[in-house]
């Protein structure tokens, strides 16, 4: 754990990507299996110990530290794992180092009820840095700026193998990746994936910044507001992966059951909404289905999921990814009829005559499930990640409203010392300010400093970490859409709200009214 803790610490304080890469390369080369595999899995958030949660740590801390002191400390530090690592009373006596794999084994084997005792015994064997590493390992949320992509590059560099091979193998082999290291070090053949329903890294898009593109080179499609998924059928099983390679098959059993072809598709998972006349419902409806481990019959009936298919990556044992989009599209159109129409449909190409026509259709799109337009280069293969010039996303212009800041809360992590989360409201007919949303992005670092100072200088009340402020600052809030919600007193909930401008010039009385926002509901 010492080497791993030192690696984490250095990664935290290292800003340059190349230096981070060098640190990981060095670690991978000089650490034995299986510790290095577990470590890299932890860095990329690929580990999950269901029995150990932040609540476990809080419960555990309560047995050793006063709860109020823990709460105050947690609020100051901004991170549960770090707070606990610092607060944990040092065990006396000399400690033998605990290996990462011993820790992983102990955490994986424990039950929910034994978890506090197991974590306590591990913590007692470590110093403050080791405790931090262990708790981050157990709880996730490492936040050391190591993406899966960076880890794969480090692996490729450490063992001098092609990064594209690593990309593909990575998700097919579970931690601690022993066959991957054996291959990297030349001790074994490249692992064979023929019989595995493995994840292919997604092709992603850059935001469109050009004035226009030529539709002779780019095909246009609607960008649907669901979740991007990959469905893979292989080795006799079907798996659904989210964009990050996380498997979400369990939440959508009806799709797993309905996908019975030997193929790999890329598409948008949506929920069919009755109010939309059986068309795709808003993201709001889809949220009812996300993150569920067990899905009730009622859920399946009320929020039926389907996939709007964008792309075909493999079919009948052939990998199509190297083919141009035009050819993949041809095969996709031929393939989709083989799937159950109840659960799969084809994402239509927008047959705009030219870019201006496309712009007009984008502006006129009123469907709540449309997030914008995708532009895909017709001659481009399907490649992992964001590549310049191949795919663009062109989101719908956001809606905006002028709201009044009501409450502010300190951020987490890097923003622990700043009031960076703002609750804002609009005026009701009765002249009362009602909260309509909360945002913590959209501003520059300079603006954040200004906002933080505004909050501190205009505090009316403190409620724990929250400050109520003088209702005088107008914030222009941008959001993708707005929905009715029972959760808020205003009856409204925004999707993706962010601060677009600070309107110091505007008096609070002139901010928008709830009624104006209600008119924007989709």
């Amino acid at each position: 754990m010492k080497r791993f803790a030192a690696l984490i610490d250095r990664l935290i304080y290292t800003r340059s990507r190349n230096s981070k890469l060098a640190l990981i390369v060095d670690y991978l080369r000089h650490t034995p299996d299986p510790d290095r595999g577990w470590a890299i899995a932890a860095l990329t958030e690929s580990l999950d110990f269901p029995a150990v949660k932040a609540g476990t740590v809080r419960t555990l801390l309560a047995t050793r530290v006063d709860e109020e002191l823990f709460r105050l400390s947690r609020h100051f530090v901004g991170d549960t794992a770090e707070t606990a690592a610092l607060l944990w009373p040092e065990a006396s006596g000399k400690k033998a180092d605990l290996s990462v794999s011993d820790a992983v084994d102990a955490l994986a084997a424990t039950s929910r009820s034994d978890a506090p005792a197991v974590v306590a015994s591990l913590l007692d064997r470590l110093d403050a840095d080791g405790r931090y590493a262990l708790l981050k390992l157990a709880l996730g949320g490492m936040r050391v700026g190591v993406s899966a992509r960076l880890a794969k590059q480090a692996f490729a560099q450490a063992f001098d193998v092609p990064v594209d091979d690593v990309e593909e193998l990575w998700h097919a082999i579970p931690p601690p990746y022993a066959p991957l290291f054996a291959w990297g070090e030349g001790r074994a053949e490249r692992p064979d994936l023929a019989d595995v329903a493995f994840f292919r890294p997604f092709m992603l898009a850059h935001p469109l910044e050009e004035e226009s593109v030529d539709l002779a080179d780019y095909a246009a499609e609607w960008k649907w507001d669901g979740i991007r998924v990959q469905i893979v059928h292989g080795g006799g099983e079907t798996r659904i992966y989210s964009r990050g390679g996380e498997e979400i098959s369990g939440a959508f059993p009806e799709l797993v059951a309905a996908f019975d072809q030997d193929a790999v598709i890329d598409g948008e998972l949506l929920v069919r909404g009755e109010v939309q006349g059986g068309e795709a419902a808003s993201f709001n409806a889809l949220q009812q289905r996300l993150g569920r481990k067990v899905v009730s019959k009622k859920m399946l009936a009320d929020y039926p999921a389907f996939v709007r298919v964008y792309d075909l990556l493999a079919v009948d044992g052939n990998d199509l990814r190297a083919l141009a989009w035009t050819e993949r599209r041809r095969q996709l159109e031929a393939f989709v009829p083989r799937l159950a129409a109840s659960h799969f449909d084809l994402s239509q190409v927008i047959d705009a005559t030219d870019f201006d026509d496309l712009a007009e259709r984008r502006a006129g799109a009123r469907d709540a499930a449309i997030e914008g337009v995708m532009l895909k280069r017709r001659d481009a293969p399907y490649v992992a990640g964001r590549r310049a010039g191949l795919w663009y996303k062109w989101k719908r212009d956001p809606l905006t409203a002028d709201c009044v800041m009501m409450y502010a809360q300190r951020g987490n992590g890097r923003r622990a010392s700043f009031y960076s989360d703002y609750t804002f409201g609009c005026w009701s007919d009765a002249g009362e300010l009602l909260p309509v949303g909360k945002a913590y992005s959209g501003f520059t670092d300079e603006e954040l400093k200004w906002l933080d100072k505004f909050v501190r200088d205009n505090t009316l009340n403190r409620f724990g970490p929250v400050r109520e402020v003088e209702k005088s600052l107008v914030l222009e809030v941008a959001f993708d859409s707005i929905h009715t919600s029972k959760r808020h007193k205003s009856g409204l909930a925004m999707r993706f709200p962010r601060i677009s401008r600070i309107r110091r010039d505007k008096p609070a009385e002139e901010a928008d009214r709830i009624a104006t926002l209600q008119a924007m509901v989709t």
Partner: protein
Amino acid sequence: MAKTRTWIEPHPSGIHVKPADLWIDPSRPAPRAAVTHGHADHARSGHGAVFATPETLAIMALRYGVDAEASNNAAFAYGDGFERGGVRFSFHPAGHVLGSAQILMEYQGERIVVTGDYKRRADPTCAPFEVVPCDIFVTEATFGLPVFRHPPTSDEIAKLIGAVRAEPERSVLVGAYALGKAQRVITELRGAGWDAPIYIHGALEKMCQLYAVHGVDLGELRLVSETDKAEMAGQIVLAPPSALNDRWSRRLPDPVTAMASGWMRVRQRARQRMVELPLVISDHADWDELTTTISEVNPKESWITHGSEDGLLRWCELTQRKARALHLVGRDLEEEA
């Protein structure tokens, strides 16, 4: 015995001692000010008369243009003091920086100690904290949360020396507050056997000279502005924290950015400062020092000011000690801790 609340009054801008019409560490100009130590959040210019230790007066003369020789100002050695309006004032070592003092006030049989800032661990640059028995103990609480436990200073100094030796082609630039922290880091380095010249930012020069005049041996110091870049490879450079990520640092050979502060205990704090090598070295009491001190002083009541008052208040509650928080303003906790 006098009733405390009738003769001493905490205000946001300082503590007012009414029978003497005197303020302790006022943040606004006052006719009479007793000053605990020379940091800018405690010592200001513009007071009618200043009462402090000779070192603190010298620091105030250097930093804020206070005339230490003027007849309205008065210097008192540790243990000495004066009387005004029936209140007896005396100065006692606080162990925070050179000249730092706790101020003891005695009035009609009641004793109140205002600590200013303090620490308990050894510091070769100043006299160690003395426990002064009192009825009311007005304590700082900069690190008044149990997450703050400063490691042994020698470990942090060893980390610093290790970092310099690990990359001899680079320099290590240590952000250290100009009054107190910088001189302490230098003397600790000397104590650990670092005999090479230590390179300093111009903003540290005069204060280092003042320390030397008061008998603190800092060894050979050289000004960065008068040194070739190449000479500083493999060497230690000290600068005020504000210079760390400033263009000034470009004159150093590929510096590793370090910072000496108690805040460095919290990773995200260190990250915010863009620090690569955090050194947990503080001139303020950590949690254990704060709680030990309250236990040892064992006052009838503790008044807790500037910092994490809530944490220390909670500890007092848990240990059944009477305590209250004062909300003083203008205390800058970020830079010099």
